[in-house]
């Protein structure tokens, strides 16, 4: 699962507006394959962590109830232009991904 993850972080006043788009199928384990009729095994992100300049700002838990290719938006006060935002996730199969971006 080394699909790219996109992060866009912009300053709006003294608050950084961070938008993250993760690439993930987010299978609930309840959906059947249209061709085989078999259940598609559950495969979804369970945990997302975000930090700004190394300080944790967000820890999210997710279920299969989050849409495919999850979008996540959050706001961080006190961040500055040029600060580094790092976002990483882990899914129920143990796959991981991480990406970083500078606040612009």
């Amino acid at each position: 699962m080394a699909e790219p993850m996109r992060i866009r972080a912009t300053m709006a006043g003294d608050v950084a507006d961070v938008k993250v788009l993760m690439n993930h199928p987010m299978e609930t384990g309840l959906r059947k394959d249209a061709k085989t009729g078999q259940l598609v095994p559950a495969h979804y992100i369970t945990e997302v962590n975000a930090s700004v300049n190394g300080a944790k700002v967000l820890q999210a838990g997710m279920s299969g109830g989050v849409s495919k290719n999850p979008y996540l938006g959050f706001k961080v006060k006190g961040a500055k232009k040029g600060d580094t935002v790092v976002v990483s996730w882990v899914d129920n199969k143990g796959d991981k991904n991480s990406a970083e971006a500078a606040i612009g």
Partner: protein
Amino acid sequence: MNALRRNVLKGAAGAGTVAVAVAAGLLKPTQALAAAPRSAFEAKSVGDVLKNMGTAAPADSKDISIKAPDIAENGAVVPVEVTSGIAGTSMIAIIAEKNATPLVADFNLSGGAQGFVSTRIKMGQTSLIRAVVTAGGKSYTAAKEVKVTIGGCGG
């Protein structure tokens, strides 16, 4: 534009199988993980979710606003934005009350993160979207109904 349309159709396909799978008891337990209690994510009723999160009786609050469409044409992708005006908001959870497993996601905020989260969720059918907020050891809640014309819990 066509590609988008196709995605929407793809998202809707297979939605009908969800109810069947739920009825057959095929809900899969997931393994326990370090984050927020996974038991809350496996709970099948709103009451159990709140109990597992340790927020059994949240107080109604007008300081929480939920931005979501009144009518969602595609239940596979329902944009939800929760803003909490409560000082010291440390956790925001999003619950789709009639989903097979109602707890969709929880967000623990720290280090300057504002009481705001925005995401996109799946909804199996028309239901209330409930936001639960923890601030200063107390829990608060608010809800908004979203009508779903095509269910999307199956992805």
